[in-house]
């Protein structure tokens, strides 16, 4: 889908090459993450793909076509671009920002309106609440979402995303990442994604390109980058705790156990007691008839509380993760709520099971022994 051949860029007045003989191929529907330290040429590479910046040497093919022979305006209309500094248009409402490319493509008004609302919902904003506002009225994280919606607007087959989650806090970032991955599963776009955070690269990428001073050091799947880093530079970038990093690669639904300690709302006290004794986390999850997680009952609750049925005994769920969260996300939530487990729900909020600290540790251990 995208092929870079000997791509080279030298900025006037710089003796070093910003991008140095880069060869890279990204398949259709793949997420390729460019990772590397600041100034290694990630942004420059992206800008050459949509021709915001002309290469000094080398070729770029999109769908087999040499981009230098294409009309740059046409090329850009079909490549969604999320720029590093967000760059929302301050004088346009959120709706108008998102509608930019559809308007350039002269879509009919009704279609644009529908699409805008749909996209804002997709990135988790309320079209009625946020659509009419100006960018200055949104938080950094919300602006970043609008930037992504804007790039997606005309449904481009290719997306260039330059550190799209840089402006948000850690928790929001991990939520946005998960939403992004869920979207990508539906939309199946060809994506080049820039980050300088190796954890993000491992989590997001189908393949990771490690760059250093404009040169490609390694181009591999995340697992390979972790298990066989090419040289000290990549090894240092990945860091020493590679086994823990692997937690980024595994998603909750992949290792959910059958046994999930769920009980219906009308379970009698005695039975709950038994189940708690059996449960390795000494807790049961209370599930309603539709399958939603309603509450939890721990050992303390059953000893102190009156009542005969599960629904009278249960306490509020401290937090949960979705089934496409990585084990790393699950671990952070466990640490945050201070428990050895976390309930897992699916995209619709239905209860799927429970992840425990022990399962996570087993994963890390099995990884170590496998090596």
């Amino acid at each position, binding site marked *: 889908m995208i092929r870079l051949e000997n791509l080279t860029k030298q900025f006037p007045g710089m003796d070093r090459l910003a991008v140095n003989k880069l060869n890279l191929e990204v398949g259709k529907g793949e997420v390729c993450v460019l990772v590397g330290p600041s100034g290694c040429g990630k942004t420059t590479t992206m*800008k050459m793909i949509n021709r915001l910046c002309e290469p000094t040497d080398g070729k770029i093919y999109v769908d087999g076509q040499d981009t230098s022979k294409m009309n740059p*305006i046409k090329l*850009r209309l079909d490549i969604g671009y999320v720029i590093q*500094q967000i*760059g*929302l*248009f301050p004088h346009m409402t959120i709706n108008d920002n998102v509608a930019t490319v559809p308007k*350039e493509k002269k879509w009919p008004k009704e279609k644009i309106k529908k699409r805008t609302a749909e996209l804002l919902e997709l990135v988790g904003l309320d079209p009625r609440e946020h659509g009419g506002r100006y960018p200055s009225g949104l938080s950094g994280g919300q602006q970043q979402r609008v930037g992504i919606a804007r790039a997606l607007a005309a449904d481009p087959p290719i997306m260039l995303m330059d550190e799209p989650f840089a402006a948000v806090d850690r928790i929001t970032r991990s939520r946005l990442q998960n939403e992004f991955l869920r979207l990508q599963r539906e939309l199946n776009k060809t994506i080049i994604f820039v980050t300088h955070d190796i954890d993000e690269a491992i989590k997001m990428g189908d393949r990771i390109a490690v760059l250093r001073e404009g040169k490609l050091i390694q181009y591999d799947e995340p697992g390979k980058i972790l298990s066989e880093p090419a040289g000290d530079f990549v090894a240092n970038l990945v860091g020493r705790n590679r086994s823990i990093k692997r937690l980024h690669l595994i998603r909750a639904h992949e290792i959910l156990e059958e046994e999930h300690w769920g009980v219906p709302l009308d379970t009698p006290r005695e039975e709950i007691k038994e189940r708690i004794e059996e449960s390795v986390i000494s807790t049961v999850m209370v599930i309603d008839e539709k399958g939603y997680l309603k509450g939890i009952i721990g050992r303390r609750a059953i000893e102190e509380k009156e009542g005969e049925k599960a629904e009278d005994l249960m306490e509020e769920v401290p937090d949960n993760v979705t089934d496409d969260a990585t084990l790393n996300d699950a671990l952070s939530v466990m640490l945050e709520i201070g428990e050895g487990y976390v309930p897992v729900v699916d995209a619709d909020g239905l209860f799927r099971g429970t992840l425990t600290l022990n399962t996570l540790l087993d994963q890390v251990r099995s990884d170590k022994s496998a090596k």
Partner: protein
Amino acid sequence: MLNRILKFLIVPILLVGMGIGVVIYVVENPTDSMVARMLTYDFIISSMEKHLLMVFVSMLGAIAVGVPVGIMLSRPSFYYVGKVIENVVNVGQTVPSLAILALFFTFLGLGFNTAVFALWLYSILPILRNTFAGIMSVQPEVVESAKGMGMSPWRVLSKIELPIAYPIIIAGIRTAIVINVGTATLATFIGAGGLGDMIVTGISVRREMVTFTGAALSALLAILLDYIIGRIEKNLVRWS
């Protein structure tokens, strides 16, 4: 909506009303026969007409030149030329208006056209400077994302850069018009007529009422134009 228009109109109506009041009062109650001979409705109206003609012709000309040239200088290929011209303009703006008029007089002679030409040139400066500064103030990432989304250079200019620079450009026009109206009252010294005539004649024949009429009318005109453009400026910026 109607309410807003009414609110917008209160001050202009008040100012115009004051102007008309002053004119009627001085024409109907002249202090002596000399004042009566000088201050007729015809004379006041024709002075006003001349004054307005001077201001509007030079302002329209200044906008027609200042904005496009400002835009041109803001294009990347003109970057260094733009910076140099910006400095020249800054120096030009510090030169006092009387000096400008005087210099043009020595080269072009007495008359209305000289005054219009000098006013035109003098008013270009703030408009050009603000157009250039306004466009340069658009954040580079905003322009980059517009380009990256596939807008043509012309669309980037008309949909992104100019609308964002608009308030600053209008502020430049506002500065220019205030300076212009003020300088136009000096045009009487180079024989161009206008409201300045009344002020200066009044001073030289020592008839305070004549001076007062010219001074009051030119002051009211300046305040009126400044108010109107200030309002336009405010109403444009809904987004910051």
